[in-house]
């Protein structure tokens, strides 16, 4: 008997007579209170986890230095590429896309996002529009994320339906960190150590 059949049979045997479980009660919140200022809350939570918050697309010119190599997804809006940095497009369908070493030579990455959750300061990427493939937001040590006002929701349950469930996703809450030494949070291990969030008001 294959391991698959064997395991499935053992499950069924173990569950003989167990019947069905009761339906899960779902009385938890699916949204924050109606009067919550979600943008302010998001900023508060981002700052708490040591991300830098900026307003307006022009701020990108100040975040990225002149001449810095900055990787961007090929579909990043032209109007976001402001300032004197050198923007290098990454196209994963390119027959020879940038490899790990190419990405390691980048000073920063500039992307958009799919959604942002205010209550936990979480920015979600699902490799959709203006986000690029996962490697470009991982290898460079500095990630600049543009968040449009209409992408910000209060609660995790409001954000999930906005994601493409089966696309590769990365949920980001602050820069790379560890709690492995005496259970204190320290920023900066393997992921981008600097996280800048640019909020675009409508």
């Amino acid at each position: 008997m294959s391991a698959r059949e064997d395991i499935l049979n053992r499950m069924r045997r173990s569950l003989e007579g167990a019947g069905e479980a009761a339906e899960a009660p779902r009385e938890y919140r699916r949204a924050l209170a109606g009067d919550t200022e979600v943008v302010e809350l998001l900023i508060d939570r981002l700052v708490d986890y040591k991300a830098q918050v900026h307003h307006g697309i022009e701020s990108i010119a100040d975040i990225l230095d002149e001449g810095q190599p900055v990787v961007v997804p090929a579909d990043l809006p032209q109007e976001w590429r402001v300032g004197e940095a050198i923007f290098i497009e990454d196209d994963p369908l390119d027959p020879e896309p940038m490899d790990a070493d190419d990405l390691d030579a980048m000073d920063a990455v500039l992307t958009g996002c799919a959604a942002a959750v205010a209550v936990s300061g979480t920015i979600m990427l699902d490799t959709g529009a203006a986000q690029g493939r996962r490697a470009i937001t991982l290898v460079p040590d500095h990630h600049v994320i543009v968040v449009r006002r209409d992408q910000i929701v209060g609660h995790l349950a409001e954000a999930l339906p906005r994601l493409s469930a089966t696309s590769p996703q990365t949920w980001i809450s602050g820069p790379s960190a560890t709690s492995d030494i005496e259970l204190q949070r320290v920023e900066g291990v393997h992921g981008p150590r600097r996280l800048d969030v640019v909020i675009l008001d409508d």
Partner: protein
Amino acid sequence: MSANAGTVPEVVPSSSLIPAGAKFPKAAKVALGMPQMRANLAHATGTIREKRAKVAGELDDWEQLRDAASAIKADVQHRMPELAIEFERKATEAGATVHWARDGVEANAIAARITREAGADEVVKVKSMATQEIELNEFFEAQGLRAWETDLAELIVQLAEDKPSHILVPAIHYNRTEIRDIFRGKMIDAPTGLTDDPAALAEAARLHLRKRFLSAKVAVSGANFAVAETGSLVVVESEGNGRMCLTMPETLISIVGIEKLLPTFTDLEVFMQLLPRSSTGERMNPYTSIWTGATDGDGPKDVHIILLDNGRTDVLADEVGRQALSCIRCSACLNVCPVYERTGGHAYGHVYPGPIGAILAPQLEPGRHDDLPYASSLCGACYEVCPVKINIPEVLVHLRQEGPHQAGEKAAMGAAKAVMARPKLWRAALGAARFFTRPWRNKGYMRRLPWPGSKWTVSRDMPMPPQESFRDWWKERER
């Protein structure tokens, strides 16, 4: 040899001080004799308890979330065959190869075969309890393959040639100075003049692993959740080592216990609120990765998932005990446990220590670890913090009842029952007990009873019988 070797105090791996195969009472006694470790644990668990309580307290629907999580996991257990098949189908449709493994040996062999077929002789690893459980690293080493741990705490433990002592923070028993000494003594490329500043230690780990991440061909991971509806896997982490392993290599092997299933993607709205708050005391962990099969032009092209049984289907058969399969490995129960805080994880002699280990280990490996259900004062703090509401004290008592009982214990309990059932005899016995224990009266307890009572006092103090029984007190009062 590191350039720093020789000048650095050597850190003795704590697990090496505990005799192999020692039962909990003996192992705990050894652990209690390590004052530095106890201080480190008290400090770390104290920190995390406070953080957890604060962020859990921010949610006014915390109890409703726990109720939902508990019920969803119970549903997963009841529908496990159906959900496992659904997961397999969806993951396969998305381009993953799904394997099944009855036990650790099968899972390790599959992982080793895939590694070799990918033309690699080493893998980078995301922290994974499942691979600890099946001793994948040891298996790989015996096969001439090398597994590199990339989580900071796992790296510390691997460099120290120690064993993990905590589910979430395997190096919780070391403080920053000891970690610096381990790095200076054992990490080939440790920066000279490395201090014990946690930021400097994290930087050292970054430099140590960076090249390996960027050039690795094969990665091995576990998963926090496996979503049946979509065939997706979820890995929750902090450092970015997980993202590195899940994104950069060509081949990805994920070893997933069959209990990790969730019915729907939407269920993450429950578990991703509970898990980070319960584990590291954060509103959300820095990074969560979710992937479904293989994606063109993004991440590993060759994606494998090994569904692991390794005793879980047997746990499923126990109506009371099966709730242990709801565990999401947050380790909140370890952090609040008065026993764990004092003995540390190594004393439990199993990869899952603490309260959850005391109910999981004896069920996953029946006949071994029968001592662990007794490694608890049944205070119930673990149940109170458990985000999926596993009634750990209930399972502990259940396993004590089911477990073996020595003839002597049975005889003593039988005798006690006979005496307690006869009021006159009971009164006489109490009187005799008071008489014979007079020399210890002022101390309030006896450390050691003569044989056979010594079996009871080997890990407990014997309180003195009260000088006046309740019956006598009542009689006096009535007069």
